[in-house]
Structure formats: structure tokens, C-alpha cells
């Protein structure tokens, strides 16, 4: 066994640079590693079966060369990048993959992955798009199906006690991420947006207990060290996935710190809590379908309401952003989405209406998920900072 030398943020950076390194070691020791796409596959279930969940992410610095043969260029470049890495063999170490109907293109990629990469284990969870009662039941049934396939894969039954332990383990990790976010409330924040993304990407590359231990080290280290520089703007960052530090680094190279986010390598993946329920699946269904705030779910606080008033509707949909801004003292919101992301694209005009309504200055950036194409965005961000400064 290699000697583990680095700790805390230093180890985070190492993992960020070479995400699969640790799970490849674990694989060599006989562990099975399961890749998952987006935040909807049930990590708790994988952990309970002693499988290592590993999030499939893209690489905005790597030109897409192979995926264009089977996925047209008019789809989300993040997913094209994930598939491209898969086709280049970068995910060959995975023992299996789990996809979900996170969005249309996410679903289609599941089929493509199965066809073109022939994974030994592959499962697709058909996650509904509403929080209707029938939809919650449907997801529960879907999770039972998922469990069955994992029982076949591992040759063992799901152990109820281990399942509950796994749920607690992931809850504990989420709670610690929330504690890490607490450290972004002071001015200046004790940890930058850039570092936060690195930490979360490291967590998405490790078994839960190991990730939690690393997180504890990071928390201790960050509390001890000298805080980063104070900046004029405290920014709330919203939108489609950010799985590379480039965009955040660009923003933080200007007079701004990202102090809170609504993205899925961010709060969306960690700000919930799975309730302890008689049937553990009920808690999971509530977490995945009701609590996670990706716009792919048509969340209604009052399902089937007979009257609709625009600003009440906006409050229901986006009210949590106002709370984020208040609690983290954000004085500006940067909305961003990569091109061809439909679920975020439809959201933008209403989102801007809401933020204007509650008096939060905002700017919308559309980008190509390409590091070299970030330069023009710099002008927009800087101009926005001049507007709010």
C-alpha cells in the first residue's frame, strides 16, 4: 500500500488533478467501483452494497473528438465531454454505471453508453419529473428495481442495518459539507469558491467514509489558516454543472468571491438530509425528488394548486435563492448555463424576474463548456462587478 502522505487541502488538490487514482487503488484491493451520472442515482444504496460510487464528470480542457460520432453537437457539451472521455477509455476502470432520467440528453446518453461502451453492469433509473404522489411512488419502485440489480451484481441481499448505516454516512458527509459552507459566511470567506469545487470533486471520487475523513481534515485546516483576501463582491453562482475550477477561478481573479452556489457540484448535491423513515426508501425518495433543487424537477409546493400568481409561483420556485443570498450575504448573482442546456435555459427569464423583484443584481452568462472560450465572459463578469460595485 502506498504511503498516504498528504492531508486536507493538499490531498484535495492531488485528487482533483487525478480523480480516479484512489478508486483505482481500491479496485486493485478488490473493491468494485460504480460510475454514476448526475446527482440522482442513490449513492446510499451503492455504499450499502460495499460498492464505491464514482461520479462521471467531463473535462472542459479536453477537446471532444470521439463523442461527435454518436452524439450530435447540438446537445449539452458537458454530457458530450463525459461520453467522449468514456469512448477514449478514461472510464474503463469502472465496474459498472448507473444513469437516470435526469434530463432528456442524460437519458439518451445512458442508451449510447450501453451500446457503445458495453459496460459489465449498467442500470437506468427512470426518475419522474414531478413531485406528484404517483411520482414519489414510482421512484420508490424504481429504487427497488435498482436494489434488485445490485443484489444480482454483488450476489448478496441488501442488509437493512448496513443500508441505514450508509444513509447515515452520506447524511454525515452532507452535514459536514454544510459546515464547510458555513465557513463561507464570514467576510472574507474562509474558503474560496475554487477550493470548494476541488473539495466537492474530491468527495465525488472517494468512498463516503474516506471522503468524510478528508472533509474533517479540510475543515480543521481551513479554520486554522489565514483567510483569503477580502473582495468587493460576494457572489451567488447559479446554474448548470461546473466541474472544473476555470470559470470560478476567472470570477475570483476579479474583485469577487463566490460565497454560495446553486449548482450540482455544490449545494444541490449536499444541502439536503435523508430523513429516518420506517421504510428507508421513503426518506430517500423525498431527498432525491423533493429536496434536490435541479430545475429538471417540476417542484410545486402546492401540487395541483388551482390558482397561480406569478410572484407566488416564483417565490415557490426560487425562494431558497433569496435565503442563500441573505445567509451568505451575497450582493450579486451570476447566472450561468452552458449552451444547449434546456432545463436551465427555460429558467433564465423567470429567474431574472425573481432576482430583480427581491433586489438582487444579476447577470446571465452562456458558455460553451470550453476553457479557452472563457475570455469573453471575463468582460461580462467584470462589467457586472462594476455595476454592483
Amino acid at each position: 500500500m502506498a504511503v498516504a502522505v498528504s492531508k486536507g487541502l493538499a490531498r484535495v488538490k492531488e485528487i482533483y488533478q487525478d480523480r480516479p487514482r484512489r478508486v483505482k487503488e481500491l479496485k486493485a484491493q478488490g473493491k468494485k467501483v460504480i460510475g454514476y451520472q448526475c446527482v440522482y442515482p442513490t449513492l446510499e444504496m451503492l455504499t450499502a452494497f460495499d460498492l464505491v460510487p464514482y461520479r462521471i464528470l467531463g473535462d472542459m480542457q479536453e477537446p471532444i473528438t470521439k463523442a461527435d460520432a454518436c452524439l450530435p453537437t447540438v446537445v449539452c457539451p458537458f454530457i458530450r465531454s463525459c461520453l467522449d472521455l468514456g469512448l477514449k477509455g478514461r472510464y474503463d476502470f469502472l465496474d459498472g454505471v448507473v444513469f437516470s432520467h435526469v434530463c432528456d440528453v442524460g437519458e439518451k446518453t445512458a442508451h449510447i453508453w450501453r451500446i457503445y461502451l458495453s459496460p459489465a453492469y449498467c442500470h437506468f433509473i427512470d426518475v419522474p419529473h414531478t413531485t406528484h404522489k404517483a411520482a414519489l411512488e414510482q421512484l420508490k419502485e424504481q429504487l427497488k428495481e435498482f436494489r434488485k440489480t445490485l443484489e444480482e451484481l454483488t450476489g448478496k441481499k441488501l442488509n437493512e442495518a448496513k443500508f441505514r448505516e450508509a444513509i447515515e454516512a452520506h447524511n454525515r458527509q452532507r452535514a459536514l459539507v454544510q459546515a464547510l459552507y458555513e465557513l463561507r459566511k464570514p467576510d472574507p470567506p474562509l474558503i474560496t469558491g475554487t477550493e470548494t469545487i476541488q473539495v466537492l470533486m474530491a468527495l465525488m471520487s472517494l468512498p463516503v467514509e474516506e471522503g468524510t475523513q478528508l472533509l474533517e481534515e479540510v475543515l480543521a485546516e481551513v479554520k486554522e489558516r489565514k483567510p483569503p483576501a477580502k473582495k468587493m463582491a460576494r457572489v451567488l453562482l447559479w446554474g448548470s454543472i461546473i466541474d472544473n475550477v476555470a470559470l470560478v477561478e476567472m470570477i475570483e481573479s476579479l474583485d469577487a468571491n463566490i460565497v454560495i452556489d446553486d449548482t450540482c457540484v455544490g449545494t444541490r448535491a449536499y444541502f439536503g438530509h435523508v430523513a429516518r423513515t420506517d421504510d428507508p426508501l421513503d426518506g430517500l425518495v423525498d431527498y432525491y425528488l423533493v429536496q434536490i433543487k435541479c430545475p429538471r424537477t417540476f417542484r410545486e409546493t402546492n401540487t395541483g394548486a388551482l390558482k397561480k400568481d406569478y410572484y407566488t409561483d416564483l417565490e415557490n420556485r426560487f425562494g431558497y435563492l433569496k435565503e442563500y443570498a441573505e445567509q451568505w450575504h451575497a450582493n450579486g448573482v451570476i447566472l450561468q448555463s452552458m449552451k444547449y442546456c434546456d432545463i436551465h435555459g427555460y429558467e433564465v427569464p423567470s429567474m431574472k424576474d425573481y432576482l430583480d423583484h427581491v433586489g438582487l443584481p444579476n447577470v446571465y452568462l452562456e458558455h460553451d463548456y470550453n476553457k479557452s472560450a472563457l475570455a469573453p465572459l471575463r468582460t461580462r463578469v467584470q462589467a457586472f462587478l462594476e455595476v454592483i460595485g
Partner: protein
Amino acid sequence: MVAVGNDRKAINRLQAMYGFRALVEDRYKRAIEASQSGQPIAWAMINWWAGDAILNTMDVVTVYPENYGVVCAATGSAQTFLARAEAEGYPAHLCGYARNCLGYAASMKAYGGIPPDAPMGGMAAPTLLLGSGGICDARYKWFQAMARYLDAPVWTLEMPHPGVHESLQPGAYEQNISFIVHELREFVAFLERLLGKKMDWDRLDETVTDMLETNRLWHEIMALRRARPCPAHSRDIWTCLGAILTPASDAKAALKLFHSLHDEIKHRVDNGIGAVPNEKYRLVFAELPIWHNLRFFDALAERGWSFVFESWAYHPPKPQDLSKVSDPLERIARHNYQWVTGYYTGAAAAGEWWGYFAYPYLELVRDYRCDGAFLHSVLSCRAGSTHLLHVRDSLMEKLKVPSLLVDGDMVDTKLFNAEDTLRCAETFEETMTHYREMRQKEGREW
């Protein structure tokens, strides 16, 4: 727009189609009358026959904004609404139908009623919006976004879309049916609360019976198109698509129309009459039609191109015997589920894992003896474009049938270049001929 083709009738059009078109036009009129008399109006997504019969039985007049996108594109009014949506801040890559509708709704709000130049007299303001969780993301996000302009409540009707492998697991079929049934029950309960009246289950039962009979007929009609020469061109189907995809909104009238359509096509088949007099090439079209330039297909028909079927989702699900199922909601559910998963058994047998969108073309191209596929890749539609490269590859690999991949849009005229496409089409004829010879050499059936 650069017009291609002329007014010569290269396609022998079906008379029965005009009745369908009249039905669609009539719906817009009825909705406006309804708005004056206080009768409820729904704007609904095409819902694969899940919600229409229910709305109809609850006396809701339904118009379909996707169809209105077609109307606006075909009448040249779409560009104004698209520009409006862009000015409202909706990104240009979003669904063309959706942007057209958002532009329309924005204009409606600004004008305080139906904008004066709206084609077909416009869509009357809705009492409710019925979105759909099935087939594409636009179909629930778009209606959610419409809250910006309309105060009508939205119901999103869920629809499962399992993978082939997952759908064939023991118990999965019944479980998905039960999901749809529950979902429909919630929808009915919502409508009862919204409209303050109870569902008439007997009437619903009758409507569903008509609807399923319509499907049986439709399936028969489509099978007739396998004849050589093909008796019905895609253009005819497109003309009436608005009514064909939503018969339960006018169940009795639609059933009558399907009968007349069946008779007319049957007559053509019996007498060897083709839609394209000199049928040289049989093609399939996927997915979203070039609504703003349908005359383009006349130009192709002049060259002997016959479009013998179109877009798997515009194709009727394989009929099932549901006579023993007493609950009308369950019959709707089984029919609706069949739409998505009806090809899955065949797909699994063929080792194909993209059971809807992609695999149906393998079956249909073989059944309809196609020489080529015209694949319309649409910048503004993920669902209608994601699978096209795979369709192209598998048609070639498994059936030796070539594809012509064309960029365009169903609504936006600015994304389609007719002259270029026609030039490519001419070259593509040689490709189709080449592969036809190759198939013959290999001893294939066509």
C-alpha cells in the same frame, strides 16, 4: 426564404386529409367561442393520448401549442413570435415550438388579448395548461416558463420512459402501468377540483373505446402505406397531424375521418395509385417536419422521392386487445405505455438498447422497404436529434440503407437551406441506388 419547387402538384394529395385539417381549424374557433361563453379551455402538449380523452369528457376545449407552432411556421407568422421570445430573454437553442408559444403568450399579455395578426384567429387564453413529462424536457419546462405570461394553473402529466433492459424485468410492465393509472387519477382529481364537476366515467369509457378503435384503424391505414407505390405521402400525414395525434379531443368526428381516410387509401392500394406518380425512391423522414417549407417535398416528389412513413412517434402504437380491461384509465395507461415501449421486445431481440426514438426505424424501414432515410437534425430539439447519428449508423450496418442528414428547424426558417439540401439530395440518389444494388446482390428482400 428561398422557395424551392413550384405550384405544380407533384404529390397526389388525399381528399380525406382536408377533413382533418378542418377539424384542427375548428378547434381554434371553438376555443375562442368557449372563451366568450366561459367554458374551460386547455392548452395541452401532445400527450400520446393520455390526457385528451379525460379533458374531452370534462368538456374542456383543448388546443395544442405545438400544433400552433406548426400553424405559425406554415403561415409565415412564426418569425415575429420567435423574435419576441428572443427579446424576452429565452435562449435561441430552446425548442422552436416553445419559443413561438412564449413569444405568442408574451404578445398576448402585452396586447391584452389575442394579438391581431395571430393566424387561425389565435389561441384563446387558457383555463389550464397540461404539460407532459414524457418524450422531451421542453414539454414540462416550457409550460412552467409560461407562468410569466399566464396565470393558468399547470398540470404536468408524467409518462415513464424506461430503458429496454429495465422494462423487461419481471414486474416492471405492471408497475409502470400502475404509475400511469395513479398519475391519471391524480389528474382527474385535479380537474374535478378545478372545474367543480365530477368525471362522467361512462362517457370517458365510451370516448376511450372510440379512441382505441381509432388507433386500430390508424394502424391499419399505416400498414396500407407499405404498398408499392405508396398510396399516402408524409405531406398528407403532416397536414393533418394536429388531428391525427389528438383524436380523443373530438373522438366521434375523428373516428369518422379515420374511416374515410382508410377507405380512400384502400381504394388507392387496390387500384395501384401512388401518392408520387413515378415512385423511384421510398424514404422515411425523421423527426420534426420542415413546417415552414413543406413545398420542398414537392420538389423531391418531382424527382420520384416518395416519403412512405415519418417520425416513429407520429406512428400509431401496435394495437392491443384491451377489451377485458374495464377501467378506462387503465386502458389509457396501457395504450400510452405502448407508445414508448411497443418496440422494446423487438429491440431486445435485436440487441438494440435504444428502444424508442432509435430502434423503431430499424423495424419500420424494413417493413416499408425504404431506400433511404431523411434525417432532419434540429438545432432547437434535443429529443428529435440526439439519436439521429445512431439511426444513420444502425440503418447502414444492419439494413444497408443510407441516410441523408440535414440541418434545419421545424419553425425557424433561418436554419434551413433548401437549395443546398436539394443539391445534396440529388447526389444522395446515387447513394440510394448504390445501396439498393448492394442489397439485391446480398439477396435482401428489397
